[in-house]
């Protein structure tokens, strides 16, 4: 980019020179004295080779199965029998330690502990505990690495999601996928390098917004492209009615001539970007329909992901599409599945949510594995925070709810560079505080980037007078989850 800019500045026509010269030379001289950094480049920016891994990557692509709304760690992967023993008893103050609560339970008079209504058992050689809600995930625990000591700074959905996706709670920063696209570039220049798939479960849902897949201050080509479930998976990609592919080709050829001419005269690099983006869209027209076509799936595939995978817009269909996108070289596929916000009716909602995601999540891992892709693809499954060990609202024999809990939660990662069959980190018997190997969101980001062959401290972008990174000023690599 800098090179192009220099080229652009040097590309001076006679007219531009004459109009600029009068004021130009004097102000240039003054500028040299006053704004040295701006004119001659900022010296403190380490030059990082963009579009290429800094060191040998362990994973080439990421699929992030975001469980939006925050599934309870206590009903999924963090088994706490003590809560069943102390069911209904008050949460000891020594455990809560005055931690802030959300407005939804802060004024509750009592904080009765509540044990999982679902049974837990150990699975695989790793002996990982998995609840009865996830029989399919339980069958592949030896491929997975559970991090039970995740913790975050935010206590409400929007800031927590934004924090997880961009490394900051406030928004406007680039999403993880955008950073990866910026750092590693595209593997397949016929597809965007960052795509987004949305689905909604039957549980209590929380919204997702385009700021979660924004490019922030990075170049707009790093923005996440949403594949929707309708007739046009990628908006405006198909030719408008009455135009065939040949006439589109002819039009693009003509347009390219005009654009090339205007690049000759003006030299603005954005013109070349535009030409390239038109060409990419043209090639996407043949790449995308093949990916989104669900009519040719084999029986084995349908059973692997579950019959929902044929219904566009479901979690299962998105998992299948994620595999296809990733297989065809999309660096970062971001799924969001809504409906995990179990403030009340946890027993009912969790079961429905788990039914929707269990088979397809495990199916995705198995599918990547049988194609030899699991070694080079990193898969993440998890939400934005955990849920409280005490009951929100009325605790009765049949049902209960859990509020937001940022101090600990569980997610799993699998695939490229991850140590399979591990359980990392530990929470106390109450499932409230972390007692061993805490992993912050920044640490998690640093580790992901490391596995992709990027030093998180060096992947920076200068904006508003300072350098930014995904991990901001924090983040330590977690060696314990790396193979």
């Amino acid at each position, binding site marked *: 980019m800098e090179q192009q800019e220099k080229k652009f500045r040097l590309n001076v026509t006679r007219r531009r020179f004459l109009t600029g010269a009068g004021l130009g030379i004097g102000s240039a001289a003054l500028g040299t004295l006053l704004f040295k950094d701006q004119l001659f480049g900022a010296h403190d920016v380490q030059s990082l080779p963009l579009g290429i891994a800094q060191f040998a990557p362990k994973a080439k692509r990421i699929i992030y199965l975001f469980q939006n709304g925050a599934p309870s760690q206590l009903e999924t992967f963090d088994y706490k029998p003590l809560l069943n023993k102390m069911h209904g008893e008050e949460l000891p103050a020594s455990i809560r330690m005055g931690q802030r609560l959300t407005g939804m339970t802060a004024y509750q008079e009592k904080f009765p502990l509540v044990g999982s209504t679902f049974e837990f058992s150990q699975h695989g050689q790793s002996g990982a505990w998995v609840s009865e809600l996830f029989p399919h995930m339980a069958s592949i625990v030896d491929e997975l690495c559970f991090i039970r000591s995740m913790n975050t700074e935010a206590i409400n959905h929007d800031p927590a999601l934004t924090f997880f996706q961009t490394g900051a709670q406030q928004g406007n920063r680039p999403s993880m996928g955008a950073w990866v696209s910026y750092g590693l570039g595209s593997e397949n220049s016929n597809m965007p390098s960052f795509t987004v798939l949305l689905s909604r479960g039957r549980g209590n849902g929380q919204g997702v917004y385009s700021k979660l897949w924004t490019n922030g201050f990075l170049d707009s080509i790093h923005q996440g492209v949403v594949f929707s479930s309708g007739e046009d998976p990628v908006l405006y990609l198909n030719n408008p009615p009455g135009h065939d592919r040949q006439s589109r080709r002819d039009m693009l050829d003509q347009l390219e001539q005009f654009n090339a001419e205007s690049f000759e005269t003006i030299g603005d690099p954005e013109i070349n970007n535009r030409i390239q983006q038109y060409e990419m869209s043209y090639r996407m027209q043949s790449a995308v329909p093949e990916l989104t076509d669900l*009519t040719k799936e084999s029986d084995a595939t349908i059973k*692997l992901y579950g019959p929902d995978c044929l219904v566009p817009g479901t979690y299962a269909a998105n998992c299948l599409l994620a595999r296809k996108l990733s297989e065809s070289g999309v660096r970062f596929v971001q799924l969001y599945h809504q409906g995990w916000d179990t403030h009340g009716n946890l027993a009912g909602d969790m079961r429905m949510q788990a039914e929707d995601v269990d088979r397809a999540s495990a199916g995705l891992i*198995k599918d990547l594995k049988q194609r*030899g892709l699991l070694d080079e693809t990193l898969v993440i499954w998890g939400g934005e925070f955990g849920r409280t060990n005490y009951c929100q609202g009325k605790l009765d024999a049949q049902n209960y709810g859990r509020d937001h809990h940022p101090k600990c939660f569980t997610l799993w990662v699998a695939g490229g560079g991850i140590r399979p069959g591990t359980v990392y980190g530990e929470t106390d018997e109450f499932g409230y505080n972390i007692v061993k190997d805490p992993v912050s969101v920044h640490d998690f980001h640093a580790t992901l980037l490391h596995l992709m062959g990027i030093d998180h401290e060096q992947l920076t972008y200068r904006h508003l007078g300072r350098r930014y990174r995904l991990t901001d000023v924090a983040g330590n690599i977690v060696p314990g989850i790396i193979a």
Partner: protein
Amino acid sequence: MNRLSACTVLVLLLVLGWVIIDPQPIPSGWLSAGRLHPVLLHLPIALVLLLLPLSILEQSSHDAAALRQLNSTILRWSAFLSSLTALAGLLLSSSGEYDATLLNTHKWWSIGLCISLLILVYLREYLDVRPQIWNLFFSLQIVALLIGSHQGGSLTHGSDFLSFTPQENKSVMPFSANDSISIWAGGVQPILNTKCVACHNPNKKKGELDLTQFASLKTGGKSGSSLDATDPLNSELLKRIVLEMKDEKHMPPSGKPQLSPSELLILHAWVSKGASPSTLFKELTPTDSLRSTVAELSAGSTEKKDETVYAFDAANSSTISDLNNPFRRIIPLSANTPALSVRFFLKEHFTLSLLQECSPIAEQIVDLNLSGMPCGDEVLDVIRQFPNLEKLNLNGTNVTGKTFSSIASNKHLQIISVSNTPVTIASLQQLKGTAVKKVFIWNTAVSSNELEVTKKQLPRIVFETGYTPDPSEVLKLTSPRPVNTERTIIAANERIVLRHPLPGASIRYTLDGSKPDSLNGILYKEPIEPSPITRIISVAFNKGWLNSDPSDYTYFQKGIAVDSVRLLIPPHERYRKNEKEVLTDLKKGYPEILNMNWLGYREQPLKAGFYLTTVPEITKVVVSAADNTGAYVFPPSKIIIRGGDSPQHLRTIGMLQPDQPTGYRSNAVIPYIVPINKGNYAYIEVEAINVTSLPAWHGGKGQKAWVFVDEVFFY
């Protein structure tokens, strides 16, 4: 005397005066003028050196008058500029960052230079000496000039700058948190060595500080000791690092590599523990963060060594960029290896020559991915020419592997993926004698019995067979869906199309509200012709599958057109967007999303008047209302329809009392069909009365319920 030379004398006198008086302190504005020294100093050097060839030319030339004139001017300017340089140098030196002895020599040497330049001017212009003598003096001047500039160079760049060897070649001590090593040696010195000693060493003591040894660190420099024994955290060593970047005293100076957070953490911890040169790591508690941070850094420094080192050279970068196109991508594995990965995209553009053209980078390819490309065994002949190939992906190609034995020449090929190909067991047997360690064979022609035998023959190879469905597992079909589920208000001639995504699945449906199954209900064959309100309940069934759950959709035909609507009672202030249009805008709402598609009432009932465009015959009125018990939204307790020619002449023509829920139930939009006295009405009034006291089973027992209506139809 020439005016320029007079100026030179004046400046020189100023310099001499300054040196003798040594005024302190100097105003800070003047200090920045000292920054001109590095710019100015090159001018007299260049001019004097330029004079060397010019004066030779002058002496050998016949017509030298013009040249002589020019040379004199140049000499005068060199003298003037060097005295200006000296003045700037004096200002710069007062910043005190430099080695004092070296500085002193440089100062006097340079003043001497200026004076001798002035003498040269005098010699040349007033004494008109013989060329031999002039040449002698001039050569001496050049030698002196070179010595003076070297001194200056040593001041800023260190005295070893001419013999400078890059830092990397010096033995840099690595981080180490071993028990037997001291924190100083294993944690602190590695930081100082990489970030500080380039400017603070015995040869180049910026600020008179040497950070190569503990003793010299403790002694410190111009600002005193780097360590403060009484208040460790106030030590100069730490203070300078945490100053703001733009502060002049910040260290390392801006533009130089800064300390990373973990490095700062180590220095901070070491200093706060007393900055001992001999404390060993084993004296720390095992969980001390100082120890773990150093251990992490030491792990990090060995990490990069883990990277595979390839013996072959890198390919020419222009070769790579020439080969790169949208259908063939060549990506280096990382920035510091020559290894390349090659992938192909868009099968309609694939040809064998795309692969063959990779021969210039044959040596560098370690990862080749042809998945999904329409290619057969012919690619193996090309692939065998890639000697360093490690990983090969042929998924979804037509490769049968009949000539797999040929890849025995790929001595490094360890992983082959042939999932989704016609590969047979005979092909796999040919892998004997190759370096292959892992083969992915999901969805190939290889049967599990055959594989068991081959596995024994090829014990070194791991075969990954992938998922095979369990035939005893019977899954439930997904529910059938009408093609159009977004828009449930349809035109009179519109048909409803049902669809199931699984090829071969059948659909049965009912229109009377009863639940169909694989035997009961109408078998779906063609699009359904709807009535004004059509509720379609459908299930899908197929051999080998469990019947789907029923899907339940209600469609409304557009009824009799309404001219205008009058809300006789305004909706609750929170739910009154677009209030005039909502009831007749042909937009249905969702029961969870109580937005501008709805009118909501709680304190008073809904009461609205409808002026119909014509005066048609009407038999029923349909009120579509939300049912969301959790959000206190209940069916109306009573719906009353009044009709007549105008608002003044009305009578009750229909009434309905909807069934009330007996517990929480799933959310829905329910059409309440109110039969009315058949007749022609110009004006109809609809009143939907909300439940005024929620039942005992509800959390809001005794409170008022909401009524939400999104649409009213007339048929």
